[in-house]
């Protein structure tokens, strides 16, 4: 029997599937957040050098990792949409973007909160921080371009092109910023290469998994709204139980 691999690439079928999948990601995300925060605050020991302040990494590191990875996911979906002209891929790209921007913002915010007690400054023009800031700008550019074009097909294709150009540019920007920093002021702060305590690792990985599941659940919920909005004139939407009631 031949399997139809493309069954769920149509918004009509994916809408139902996404609805069924959301609890499977949202509930584990909530549980893992609770577990991760418990391990992070109660089990993990105090750091010898940084005291209690280090605990912010349990949200800071997962947020930074996801903000970078989600940009690639977004650019990947956008490229799929541009190449194969699939509606759902473009919808996924625009559904991922706000979550990525949110994580980039959380990463900068928590970094500032950590930097004040540790480095004595809210903001340092460090290579990593600067490239994270530029990443946030790239997300905002994508969202702004998508929002300012009225025709959704043109918006999808234009912002897809922007996302691809951005993803080509990201490594160039990263290395130029890294070089700029070392050229001007040298590396002022280095993370000491001490191995992490096992409980810290557990807390970090639990939080990372929780953030992943949260990102997937939120993206699925958002893509359902986008499908509803874009296909509102179609018959199958009008026949949905939640629309009729």
């Amino acid at each position, binding site marked *: 029997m031949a399997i139809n691999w493309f069954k769920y690439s149509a918004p009509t079928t994916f809408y139902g599937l996404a609805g069924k999948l959301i609890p499977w990601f949202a509930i584990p995300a909530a549980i893992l957040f609770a577990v991760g925060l418990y391990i992070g605050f109660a089990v993990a020991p105090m750091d010898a050098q940084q005291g209690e302040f280090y605990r912010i990494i349990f949200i800071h590191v997962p947020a930074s990792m996801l903000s970078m990875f989600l940009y690639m996911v977004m650019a990947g979906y956008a490229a799929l949409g541009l190449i194969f002209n699939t509606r759902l891929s473009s919808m996924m790209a625009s559904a991922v973007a706000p979550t990525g921007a949110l994580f980039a913002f959380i990463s900068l915010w928590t970094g500032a909160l950590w930097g004040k007690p540790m480095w004595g400054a809210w903001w340092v023009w460090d290579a990593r921080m600067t490239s994270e800031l530029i990443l946030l700008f790239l997300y905002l*550019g994508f969202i702004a371009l998508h929002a300012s074009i009225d025709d959704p097909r043109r918006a999808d294709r234009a912002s897809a092109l922007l996302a691809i150009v*951005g993803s080509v540019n990201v490594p160039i920007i990263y290395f*130029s910023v890294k070089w700029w920093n070392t050229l001007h002021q040298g590396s002022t702060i280095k993370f000491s290469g001490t191995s992490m305590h096992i409980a810290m690792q557990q807390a970090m990985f639990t939080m990372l998994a929780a953030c992943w599941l949260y990102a997937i659940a939120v993206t699925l919920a958002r893509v359902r709204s986008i499908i509803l909005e874009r296909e509102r004139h179609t018959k199958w939407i009008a026949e949905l139980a939640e629309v009729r009631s």
Partner: protein
Amino acid sequence: MKKRSLFSLLMLVIRRDLVLALRCRTDVLTTLVFFVMVVSLFPLGVGPETDMLRKIAPGVLWVAALLSSMLSLGRLFSADYLDGTLEQMLLVPQSLSVLVLGKMVAHWMVSGLPLVLLTPVLGLQFDMSVEAIGVLILGLLLGTPVLSMLGAIGAALTLGLRGGGVLLSLLVLPLCIPVLIFGTGAVGAVTAGLNYSSNLSMMGALLVLALTFTPWVAAQALRISME
């Protein structure tokens, strides 16, 4: 009709855009005046100490060049779009990328090159050394074409949108950061007595990369915007 060679097509587009720019000179002059004004505002803002001015000069000149090239980018395609010429250009049985490249080159000659030529005067205002000015000019010569080319992608994507100008800057400025870093880095290296050739080589690499890919990407962006 005789089919033109790619090179003669390129020359045709460049000549056409240059003639158009010369026919309404105010557009060119406003960009230049804007550049000079922004640069002259900085000493008023940060104070006239020569040491500090010498230090911030490359950054100020580069940022001002970046901003004034953003200012003129809005006009790159919009006039042709409004009078329908752009639609005819898309229909031409020739490579659209070459047409776009021609427009990029013309845009640089109109809005980038004059800035480079003005730079020595502004550099003297900031008490830069002759050597530093030389490297700054070399960097600007390599870098401003990249700004025009990256900007053309943004201009093509935002064609005919409301609030296009601000949106264009939002899209293009983050992409221009490497050019800014290497351009100012070269001047910083020469004033610190270091070797500046690595910075300029990186700028050259960016220029080649942009020259290879941006005309095609901008052409695709135009097709998306015009369909």
